[in-house]
């Protein structure tokens, strides 16, 4: 459409040529025009139904087993620690997620900076080592770690879970931060060096603030991977309970509705956070344009 407003003869010709064909094209387009959004709409519905179900059943007056609808209540929300095990498992998951995120983000960011900014021998090997954990199914990672922990007689618990989570999060951090490092102009660091900044202060005062959005995204990704992980956790945790593990184990006898409350509250919190980031981003883009 913009072609008609430009004045070069070539695009004028192209726009003229496309005009007679346009009505015919419109008619054949119509089926696809309608079909694709309808298919996508159904797919979105498919994605969201179980979430709606989980949220709805957090309001179920269920007692101990949350299997059938027994009526609406706010009691579960008023006292999410009514089933104390749920709360303990949830607290453990938060602690594991936070610890693993800090460690994985630090290790992964350093790796990403090194991989993008420096050419060295064995770089391909390092890339392979980072790619491999991502292309290994969780059950293999869990089995491998358990085999090692068993043979070294490491007692399973909080630290083995954290160690395992850091391992599979690092690769995702590297991939996320790498994209951000690659988009930075190295001239900025050179300018800092030209202004007599040492490498250390150049990194902290120039590179790091520019990397921050990438690092934040990587940290969020790590936290959600760690928080929601079940399979690796199941292999490396021994008797230490996390939220997904608690839900899985209690699935056979019915999950207390408090678990749905915690799941729904996390969902609402994340949704608010993401929407706030989106709105702030849109506002910033509008301000830049104005």
């Amino acid at each position, binding site marked *: 459409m913009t072609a008609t407003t430009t004045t070069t003869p070539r695009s004028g010709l192209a726009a003229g040529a496309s005009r007679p064909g346009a009505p015919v094209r419109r008619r054949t387009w119509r089926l696809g025009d309608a079909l694709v959004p309808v298919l996508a709409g159904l797919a979105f519905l498919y994605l969201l139904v179980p979430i709606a179900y989980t949220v709805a059943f957090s309001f179920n007056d269920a007692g101990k087993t949350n299997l059938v609808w027994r009526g609406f209540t706010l009691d579960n929300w008023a006292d999410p620690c009514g089933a104390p095990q749920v709360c303990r498992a949830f607290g453990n998951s938060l602690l594991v997620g936070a610890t693993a995120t800090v460690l994985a983000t630090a290790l992964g960011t350093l790796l990403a900076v090194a991989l993008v900014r420096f050419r060295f021998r064995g770089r391909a090997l390092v890339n392979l080592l980072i790619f491999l954990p991502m292309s290994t199914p969780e059950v293999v990672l869990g089995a491998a770690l358990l085999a090692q922990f068993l043979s070294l007689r490491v007692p399973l618990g909080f630290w083995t879970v954290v160690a395992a989570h850091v391992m599979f999060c690092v690769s995702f951090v590297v991939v996320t931060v790498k994209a951000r490092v690659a988009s930075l102009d190295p001239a900025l660091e050179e300018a800092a060096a030209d202004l007599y900044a040492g490498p250390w202060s150049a990194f902290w005062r120039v590179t790091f603030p520019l990397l921050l959005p990438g690092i934040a995204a990587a940290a969020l990704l790590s936290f959600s991977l760690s928080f929601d992980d079940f399979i690796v956790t199941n292999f490396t945790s021994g008797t230490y309970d996390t939220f997904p593990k608690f839900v899985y184990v209690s699935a056979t006898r019915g999950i207390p509705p408090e678990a749905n409350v915690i799941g729904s509250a996390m969902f609402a919190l994340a949704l608010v956070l993401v929407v706030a980031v989106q709105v702030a981003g849109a506002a910033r*883009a509008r301000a830049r344009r104005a």
Partner: protein
Amino acid sequence: MSLLAGLGAGPAGAAGGAAVVPAPRRPTSRAWLWLLLPGLVYLLLLFVVPVVALLATSLYAPVPGGELGQYAPALRVANYADALAAFWPQLTRSFGFALLATLAALLIGYPMAYVIAVRARGRPLLQGLLLVLVVAPFFTSFILRTIAWRQILADDAFVVQALQLLHLLPEGGRLTATPVAVVSGLTYNFLPFMVLPIYASLERLDPRLVEAGADLYASPATTFRTVTLPLSLPGVVAGTLLVFIPASGDYVNSSLLGNSTNTSMVGQVIDARFFRVLDYPTAASLSVVLMLVILVLVGAYVRRAGTEDLL
């Protein structure tokens, strides 16, 4: 230093400037080693060494006359033959289910990615909202969502009864504990991993290329087949890998939505061998086989699709 060089006179200064640029970086020239070392050592100790431990465990032999779960280091290659003979059906079923789930996720996920990236182009608010909906499942525990499916598809729940009333499902027919339930659970759980990379490559697609296709009298279908689809291929390759790899090792869906006999997958066997039977060598050799098969498949697939740089 380069500042001083810049102040130097004429062409000599300019030539010197280019040579001088690396100079301030000299103190950092070994920096890459220090940046790499912590992460590399970590991955070495918690990925490479455990995988070696897994390989070693897969060759252990039971201690003669020992208790259950007592094994000694050995080179018992027969563990692999035994494990494959006993659990061949679960192994092939895992790859079959994962393949079906990957295809289903591609068929469902591509239109979603297309609508977000192409149809919603230029409407950032709508695009943002749809993207939030795609990642929304990540915000609720995936086990809670899988259990929600189990309850939605349960025998005495609305869906099954409605289907039976409409004679779409035979009397006494069920949805849970079937391969269909497991595959649809796998599809559901990994669908966002398909949508996001395809979205990312469609988003980068220059709309003028599609307009050019139309200007050259290609039908929309032809334009899609010859322009849009090939350009979104990197996203499709990444998405299929991100679905296939976790789906083939998953056992949450098969144990929550399936039953033990005709839906069990290799992950379930590995878990049960480790924890219930304390048969570490079998569990380890099945894990090694699973890992090797996936590496070979992924390598062949990526090479065929011509997207090695994806790695």
